[in-house]
């Protein structure tokens, strides 16, 4: 038995006597509130973590130093002391003019990067005048149908001076090509551009469901972008492998970690199989995680993610560049945790979630606005969300110390447990032949649906308390003003589209679309003909239709 004193004030003979002499009498006087305590993911947590809980977890090869393998403590030696995280607020609504104005406001308010939210027709590769776009144009994001819209979206914003993240997946190549052409016309060379396209189709099949083509040809589009950027746009993050949507769909923290990193493995494998040297494209892979409500579990998740990725890249893929080993990530606070009841409570939730992301070492962060359980945020709510980050960065002191929770018995144990759970999922998915076959069998979808239902049951039974929902319910809360999207956005976008169609050269458009089909059915990279089509003002809908002609559309079998 270890007889070292474990706690200040504890009897000298260790945990057992402390339990007997201190804890048990205390419990007899004041019993605990519940038989078991769990994280928001349902993971049991002990009453107390001690040096024994974290035994072996602070060794150099496990913990490492900041900026050193396996990067548990962060990818930068000096944390945020050199450069704080990028405050990147996701925004987009209505017409490109509406969103351009919001971007200028966010940049003027001290935002340090842009993040484009596209509307559903754009995300699904449908033009604003398509019957399926009815009522949806500009609602969940900005409508972008052709290069003409992209020119307006970034008017007066120097693409050489900012970084832009674009949340776009099935039509990622088309939207990226538009950004490249806008940069070209601003005189900014592609080699100077920095930013991110989400381009993560696997999590669409798993969680967010904005897919167009079946999984395998969709993966082809992703690897085409890897190859194109390795040659032409070397500073661009070609993919943002996203756990955010997986978590929002109901996954636990461990499932978010496991499925996201296993998706990352799938992309790297496809890139390698396509003949790319791993160190030529892996450094441009970035990640995107949720920042949910369970404070320590989230911090541990980010730390585990870095350690897992470093080892996977070095040991599984033989990557030799440290930049391939380093997991860089964006975080966004959990939209799903926001409640319509008592909306001001959401400011507090978001602040605490953002703090977890910062303590976990996020490279960039989006904080949700208090009104997002009701609508897209108003300018005022979006500014308050940004202010939350600025307060964290400048007033709380948390950005002054690298990995301040490193060595915490609890956080180190939790980090290792999440890592082990992710590795167990990697094994199961490997045995299915990889993530694409696992998705085709509905495996991650089913696991997530189970977790979502289990969580909701806990809320129903009251074993999981949510303030304003089943605890401190009060009077339904305050009414707040919300953003309403101009219903005329659809008509204005359709009108601009019609004007674009009238003034462009139809033969140039048709020729480029034919070359997209040709590349899709053969083996040539799809990016060059997509760039050609964009320059000819072909629309997102037309380019996506060209690929639909070749690959067809994916219809999922729902799992409930």
């Amino acid at each position, binding site marked *: 038995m270890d007889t070292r004193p474990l706690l200040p004030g504890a009897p000298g003979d260790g945990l057992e006597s402390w339990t007997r002499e201190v804890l048990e009498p205390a419990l007899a006087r004041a019993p605990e509130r519940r038989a078991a305590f769990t994280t928001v993911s349902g993971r049991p947590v002990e009453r107390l973590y001690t040096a024994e809980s974290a035994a072996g977890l602070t060794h150099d090869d496990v913990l490492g130093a900041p900026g050193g393998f396996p990067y548990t403590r962060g990818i930068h030696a000096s944390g945020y002391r050199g450069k704080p995280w990028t405050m990147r607020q996701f925004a987009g609504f209505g017409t490109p003019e509406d969103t351009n104005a919001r971007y200028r406001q966010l940049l003027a308010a001290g935002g340090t990067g842009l993040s484009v939210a596209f509307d559903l027709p754009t995300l699904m590769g449908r033009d604003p005048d398509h019957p*399926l776009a009815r009522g949806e144009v500009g609602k969940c994001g900005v409508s972008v149908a052709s290069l003409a819209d992209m020119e307006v979206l970034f008017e007066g914003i120097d693409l050489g001076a900012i970084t832009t993240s674009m949340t776009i997946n099935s039509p990622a190549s088309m939207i990226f090509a538009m950004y490249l052409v806008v940069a070209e016309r601003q005189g900014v060379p592609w080699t100077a551009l920095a930013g991110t396209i989400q381009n993560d189709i696997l999590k669409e099949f798993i969680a967010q469901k904005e897919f167009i083509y079946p999984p395998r040809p969709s993966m082809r589009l992703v690897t085409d972008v890897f190859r194109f950027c390795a040659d032409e746009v070397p500073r661009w993050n070609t993919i943002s492998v996203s756990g955010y949507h997986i978590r929002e769909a109901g996954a636990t923290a461990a499932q978010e970690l496991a499925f996201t990193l296993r998706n990352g493995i799938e992309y790297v494998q496809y890139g390698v199989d396509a003949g790319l040297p791993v160190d030529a494209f892996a450094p441009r892979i970035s990640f995107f995680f949720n920042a949910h409500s369970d404070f320590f579990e989230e911090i541990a998740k980010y730390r585990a993610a870095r350690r897992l990725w470093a080892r996977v890249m070095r040991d599984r893929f033989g990557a030799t560049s440290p930049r391939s080993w380093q997991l860089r990530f964006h975080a966004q606070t959990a939209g799903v945790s926001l409640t319509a009841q008592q909306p001001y409570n959401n400011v507090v939730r978001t602040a605490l979630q953002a703090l977890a992301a910062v303590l976990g070492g996020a490279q960039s962060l989006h904080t949700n606005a208090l009104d997002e359980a009701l609508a897209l945020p108003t300018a005022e709510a979006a500014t308050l969300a940004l202010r939350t980050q600025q307060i964290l960065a400048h007033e709380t002191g948390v950005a002054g110390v690298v990995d301040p929770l490193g060595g915490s018995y609890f956080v180190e144990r939790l980090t290792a447990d999440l890592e082990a759970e992710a590795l167990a999922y990697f094994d199961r998915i490997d045995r299915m032949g990889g993530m694409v076959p696992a998705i085709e069998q509905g495996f991650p979808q089913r696991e997530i649906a189970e977790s979502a239902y289990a969580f909701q049951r806990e809320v129903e039974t009251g074993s999981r308390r*949510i303030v304003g929902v089943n605890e401190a319910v009060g009077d339904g809360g305050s009414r707040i003003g*919300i953003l309403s999207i101009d219903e005329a956005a659809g008509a204005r976008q359709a009108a601009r589209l019609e004007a674009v169609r009238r003034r462009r050269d139809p033969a140039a458009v048709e020729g480029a679309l034919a070359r997209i089909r040709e590349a899709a059915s053969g083996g040539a990279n799809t990016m060059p003909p997509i760039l050609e089509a964009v320059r000819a003002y072909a629309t997102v809908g037309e380019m996506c239709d060209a690929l639909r002609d070749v690959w067809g559309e994916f219809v*999922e079998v729902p799992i409930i």
Partner: protein
Amino acid sequence: MDAQSTIRVVIAKPGLDGHDRGAKVIARALRDAGMEVIYTGLRQTPEQIVTAALQEDADVIGLSILSGAHMHICPRVMDLLREKGLSDVLVVVGGIIPDADIPALNAMGIRGVFLPGTPMQSIVEFIRSHVSPRVETI
């Protein structure tokens, strides 16, 4: 002979949005509460939803809409139900719905509007108290 009453519910995701967590969770909750639930899957047009309700002999249609398109989708569904003589079908909507739109949704005949954070049990109870279940003779 046993008489058994079963409420039949079509849960549908109209529009282009794919966020189906709520639709799937509520489908299971209603099923666990003893209702018969048909989940249509994603991206159903109002026509497809009403056809499903007709074919499935539904007592209830539950629409899950998070995209802000509810004021376009809901009137179309209600018009089609009237055209097909299905005005007695109880229609409820759940999702991201601004308070200001609720009176208009109620006025077009949508009896229940459920926002994020609504307990499943209150949806179950709402449906039970607003549907007169058929009596099937087996």
